[in-house]
């Protein structure tokens, strides 16, 4: 451990659970922590947990978490020397990384030019090809906003249908459209361009062959500034809704050991090719023949990094920080590649799964978090916090560990029932349904599994039993009686309404 550690101070340019995750890693390394917040996040958990906290601006992200100038100013003012971008917001913005470097700060991530190179979907594909890693067939050059449709259509015919229209600057499913037939191409191009333009300020797109029922499998890696690249056991992220990961696990329930080795080696080649440093992830698609294709690289920490931590015991965020400080990776390659047991993560959002996963932000009146063996709760929300409407509505990443995948699923079933987020609809009922699906139990699913089900499904994910209905009737009636007798009118979950009303009103 370098002697300088206690003098290190880290600005976390993010919010919510990931800001808290970074703060925790800093504390364990004895680093100081600086949080930032927008108007609506003043009493968010990450602000409360940090040593210092500074106001960034109004709630919309463009006025706060995306304000490079303010972030740099706060870093300098607070005496922070490292800047950790988390994921999302500016995490893959090379301008931000460059601004940090220019201001004399250490950006916790790869060099700005590497972010730019791997962030461009087409340039990243070129890197993969150069590193001798197979890519999904598609167009090499991006089509900018002015490219006529006819040119795109001609290229589409070469790539072949079904295909995907993808934004060069895209991510998380935004600016991506599937096209089954040539006649649907024009619409998809228009929508993808407009989404990408609105979300990323860049409406350039490209085309890619759509594989049939592929699995999304990705390789986490760490690379230090001394040439060591360390690939990890894979994560399986095929359970997706509209290209957004919903459940992630490690290891994959299907990957053959030799495929794991080949994939890890391919990921390491891509990272070495560009002189990558820090934590990053290479995403692959695996087809039913066992062949895999480079999809893209995420030049940052992933939401789902915790499943890798659970099966390897390696703290990825601590290593991000240590690598940024110039330390050498000392992890044995075998430890990173050999999973111990099985970990599964569920992303619990404030969304109502029975209304098409409609966001349901609002006040979390109380929280009951699962405990006991084999459970990790990375939440960004505390009781009495009003989940803002300005950002994604992630409440918690719930991660379970079991000796086997079957054990992990049994445990997941248990902890999903223990978890209670009072006052808002969450995706918990959806996960309670998912863990009982035979396809999930045996691990037989592809990236289209969930969307296929959701397209035809109309009943609620979990139906109340007769006993549930009775309990609901009894609880409603007794609560009504107690309220009439003032018992619940100040405290517990029932009585906070008037205070919350007052609170919201005064925030307007």
């Amino acid at each position, binding site marked *: 451990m370098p002697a300088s550690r206690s003098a290190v101070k880290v600005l976390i340019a993010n919010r919510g659970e990931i800001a808290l995750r970074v703060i925790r890693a800093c504390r364990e390394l004895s680093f100081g922590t600086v949080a930032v917040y927008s108007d609506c996040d003043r009493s968010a958990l990450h602000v409360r947990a940090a040593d210092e906290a500074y106001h960034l601006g109004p709630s919309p992200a463009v006025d706060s978490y995306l304000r490079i100038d303010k972030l740099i100013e706060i870093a300098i003012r607070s005496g922070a020397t490292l800047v950790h971008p988390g994921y999302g917001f500016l995490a893959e913005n090379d301008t931000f990384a460059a601004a940090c470097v220019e201001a004399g700060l250490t950006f916790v991530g790869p060099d700005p030019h590497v972010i730019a190179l791997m962030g461009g979907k087409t340039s990243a594909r070129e890197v993969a090809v150069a590193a001798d890693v197979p890519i999904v067939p598609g167009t090499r050059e991006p089509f900018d906003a002015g490219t006529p449709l006819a040119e795109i259509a001609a290229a589409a015919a070469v790539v072949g249908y079904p295909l995907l229209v993808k934004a060069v600057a895209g991510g998380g499913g*935004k600016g991506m459209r599937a096209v089954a037939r040539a006649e649907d191409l024009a619409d998809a191009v228009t929508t993808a361009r407009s989404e990408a333009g609105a*979300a990323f300020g860049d409406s350039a797109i490209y085309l890619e062959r759509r594989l049939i029922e592929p699995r999304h499998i990705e390789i986490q890696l760490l690379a230090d500034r001394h040439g060591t690249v360390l690939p990890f056991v894979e994560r399986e992220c095929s359970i997706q809704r509209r290209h957004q990961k919903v459940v992630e696990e490690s290891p994959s329930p299907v990957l053959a050991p030799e495929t794991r080795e080949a994939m890890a080696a391919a990921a390491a080649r891509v990272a070495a090719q560009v002189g990558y440093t820090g934590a990053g992830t290479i995403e692959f698609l695996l087809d039913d023949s066992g062949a895999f294709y480079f999809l893209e690289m995420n030049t940052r920490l992933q939401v789902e990094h915790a499943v890798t931590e659970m099966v390897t015991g390696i703290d990825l965020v601590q290593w991000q920080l240590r690598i940024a400080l110039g330390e050498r990776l000392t992890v044995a390659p075998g430890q990173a590649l050999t999973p111990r047991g099985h970990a599964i993560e569920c992303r619990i959002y404030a969304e109502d799964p029975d*209304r*098409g*996963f*409609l*966001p*349901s*932000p609002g006040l979390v*009146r*109380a929280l*009951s978090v699962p405990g006991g063996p084999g459970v990790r709760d990375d939440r960004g929300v505390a009781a009495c916090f009003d989940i803002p*409407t*300005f*950002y*994604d*509505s992630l409440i918690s990443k719930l991660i379970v560990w079991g000796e086997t995948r079957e054990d992990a699923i049994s445990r997941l079933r248990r902890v999903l*029932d*223990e978890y*209670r*987020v*009072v*006052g808002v*609809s969450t995706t918990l*009922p959806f996960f*309670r349904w998912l863990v009982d699906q035979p396809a999930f139990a045996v691990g037989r699913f592809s990236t289209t599994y969930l969307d296929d089900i959701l397209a035809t499904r*109309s009943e609620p994910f*979990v*139906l*109340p*039993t*007769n*006993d*549930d*209905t*009775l*309990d*609901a*009737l*009894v*609880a*409603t*009636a*007794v*609560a*009504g*009686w*107690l309220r*009439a*007798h*003032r*018992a*619940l009118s100040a*405290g*517990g*979950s*029932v009585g906070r*309404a008037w205070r919350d009303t007052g609170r919201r009103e005064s925030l307007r």
Partner: protein
Amino acid sequence: MIFEIEIDGTVRSVSVQPIGDAGAAGGLFQIRIVGPGVGSEGARDPFLVDARPTELGLSLAYPDTGRSVDVAITPRPAGEQLLQLPHVDVRAVLDGRRLRRDGADGGAGTGEQRVAAPMPGRILRVMVERGQEVIARQPLLVMEAMKMENEIRALRAGRVKDISVAAGHSVESGRLLLIIE
């Protein structure tokens, strides 16, 4: 006390009678349910429940069957209650006030559905027309909010009576979007 409680379109009348020293800290209550029979204890009339306030809502224990269940309770506007049981969320409406209500999602029972914006955002597409028949859960319009496209769906079958927004409109939370009769 007697409460009219609607769950999933069915209204039952539930009477609550304290036993002994039941009071502010909960205690033993005698329950009588009038309406379609339901649940393990529902067969008995009346039955007992030992109910205690907790940090989440109420802990219920039924002395006759031994069943224990932990219920989180959130009152919402117009008598709606969100009941979060260990495995499932249930929505109940206390004293039929939902029928008189004109905000939010319009309810799952009968009568007019007044579909309101669940959050601030922008209308991207309106997928139905005035006078059109819709089925339960049919997508009505698409809103962009919280950086995602969100489908707003019908809760019940009906006919679109009125549409008060169009694509491109920015709407506040609670703004009436359309009415289904």
